[in-house]
């Protein structure tokens, strides 16, 4: 038996090209559906882990999916916005801690995330280099964002105009980079974080300009009437917040009326969470509150449906490939008829010859299967990290 197996192995080794093609086919037949399944399962776990770590999301009524994607992954653009009053409302309810988010603006193609310091505590984000944002006009960068922007503490980041055709729009704000966060392997790595108030300055809701009561601004004064001063368009407005002009920055109106895209609500306990959910169920509510976990699971159900079609397709292709491999083996038997006859003539029994041919096939299948198993293990171990690196590069 050992000699038969040796002969089979030598045959496979000698016809290395044919054997390699057959082994590769077997490997792919096994690996493709299994590996895809592993990848999708891992993705789903990671996706839901960020959603599960975010108890409740509140935003303007509209698509719950867009709200979750915008708030968790800073991806989909949210056209419907709510106001900061909703964050105050949640805080005042005593049921949850409110973390407002304003994800609207970009620096190049990276999202500028306006939030409060509570976000960093909640996500466990720590500063690796420099310090945390302290004053208006400062920003901290995710690890990958720092690489992509090629800057770090002491550098600057400029917000991108929303539309190049909006000539009368808000000037880009030059922000001071004061820190870079530790890598978190999450969408936070690609974000530029600013204080919520800085995001409002980017929008133009807060701004700094010359003091109209001072002589230096006399040229910009159109008229005075009592305590009212009207300025003309020559009034110098600042597009960078510095120590010198910081005091001139101010906001018009109540901060509670200012826009945000979402509020992350972190209930103090489970009961508080349920009560909070109930409070936003009325038809008259202009806001929606969602559990990101549920929204993402619904989305994953759709993804899994698509996946099952893909797997079915792969299985069909695999079956066809398998049939082709069997055909190749059968055809090779016909080509090897003289070789087989020689083996019989020199004393090999029919059973022994059949065992030899079968051993060759088994070797190909076993090696192919082992390679597929190895690839699956590698996918399990490094697959998500590799794609993550690809995504964040």
């Amino acid at each position, binding site marked *: 038996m050992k000699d038969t197996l040796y002969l089979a192995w030598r045959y496979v080794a000698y016809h290395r090209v044919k054997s390699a093609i057959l082994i590769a086919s077997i490997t792919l037949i096994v690996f493709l559906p299994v590996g895809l399944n592993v990848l999708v399962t891992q993705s789903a776990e990671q996706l839901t*882990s960020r959603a599960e770590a975010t108890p409740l999301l509140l935003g303007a009524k509209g698509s719950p999916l867009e709200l979750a994607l915008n708030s968790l992954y800073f991806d989909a653009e949210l056209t419907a916005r709510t106001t900061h009053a909703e964050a105050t409302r949640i805080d005042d309810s005593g049921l949850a801690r409110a973390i407002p988010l304003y994800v609207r603006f970009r620096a190049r193609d990276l999202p500028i995330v306006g939030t409060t310091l509570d976000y960093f*505590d909640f*996500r466990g984000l720590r500063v690796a280099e420099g310090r945390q944002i*302290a004053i*208006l006009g400062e920003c901290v960068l995710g690890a990958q964002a720092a690489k992509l922007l090629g800057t770090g503490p002491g550098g600057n980041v400029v917000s991108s105009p929303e539309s190049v055709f909006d000539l009368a729009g808000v000037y880009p704000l030059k922000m001071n980079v004061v820190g870079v966060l530790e890598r978190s392997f999450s*969408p936070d790595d690609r974000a530029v974080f600013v204080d919520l108030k800085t995001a409002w300055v980017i929008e133009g809701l807060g701004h700094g300009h010359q003091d109209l009561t001072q002589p230096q601004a006399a040229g910009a004064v159109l008229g005075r009437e009592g*305590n009212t001063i009207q300025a003309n368009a020559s009034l110098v407005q600042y597009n960078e917040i510095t120590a010198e002009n910081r005091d001139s*920055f101010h906001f018009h109106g109540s901060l509670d009326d200012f826009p945000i895209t979402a509020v992350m609500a972190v209930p103090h306990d489970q009961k508080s969470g349920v009560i909070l959910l109930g409070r936003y169920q009325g038809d008259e509510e202009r806001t929606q509150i969602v559990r990101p976990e549920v929204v993402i699971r619904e989305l994953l159900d759709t993804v899994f449906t698509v996946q099952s079609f893909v797997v079915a397709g792969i299985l069909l292709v695999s079956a066809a490939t398998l049939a082709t491999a069997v055909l190749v083996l059968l055809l090779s038997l016909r080509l090897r008829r003289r070789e087989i006859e020689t083996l019989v003539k020199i004393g090999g029994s029919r059973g022994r010859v059949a065992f030899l041919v079968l051993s060759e096939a088994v070797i190909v299948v076993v090696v192919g299967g082992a390679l597929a198993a190895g690839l699956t293990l590698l996918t399990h171990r490094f697959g998500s990290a590799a794609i*993550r690196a690809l995504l964040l590069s």
Partner: protein
Amino acid sequence: MRMLRSPLLVLLAGLAAACGSEDSERQAADTAAGPTRPLSVYAVNHPLAAMAERIGGADVEVTFPAPPGEDPAYWSPLPEAVVAYQGADLILLNGAGYAKWVAQSSLPASRLVDTGAGYADRLIPLEETVTHSHGPEGEHAHGGAAFTTWLDPTLALEQARAIAAAFERARPERAATFRERLTLLEEELLALDGRLDGVAEALGDAPLIFSHPVYQYLERRYGLNGRSVHWEPDEEPIGREWRKLERLLPEHAARWMIWESEPLTSVEARLEEMGIRSVVFDPCASVPPEGDFLTVMSRNVERFEAAGSPRDEGR
């Protein structure tokens, strides 16, 4: 298009999602270390720091980092000082827009304690507000409310209660102790209120001039008949300011001018010549050379009591 993109985007984004948050670990560590160490409390002015110290005692470590002599209302801290505030367990705000730097800084919302939230509807709007307009936004004002709220002891009392409530939330196991200390502070503040009532009774409706527009709450609480000018104790007023005062006196025949601190001798002498006595009532926004907010307030009352009443003084 969006519908087609979304599952793929989410799938890819999911691959980039965090493997887990350290938040729970940090919270657990904080909880474990928390009760064994004093609560770190930062305040935006001295009265709040003083009240926090009285209520918190050894259970809190109160910091008010503004340099002595600097007016905390207009102090502009360096980013490093703001970062120090960020590290506190609780940050005591005065409310009424006090300490402008707060609005321009990033402070953790969950650790802010607005001690003035309870009387937000009783704030006094500033009169000298400049309204201006530029661009399509229309008119807007940079005004606000008077912010020296603690000069009304009843408002200070509400601030003290807000501080005690915040301490109780942070250290529920020490709630009884905080309440006991709050009761003592309440007694002191009410006693101060009673003494100021006595001073106000002696003053009656006698006209007063305040050297700075910071006494609005004192004026309202005790029904004082005051008008404010804008003089600094350590500066000689310019001629225009003297003329403004001379024009004011016929309609508001004040015999006392209330100062935040001792005025220049030359200014005091010239006022004396005009029949106006200088009396110091220190608002005590920043750390006093000795004592604390309550002892300074007590000295303020003593100075008023010693000065008698402007009604007794002839012109």
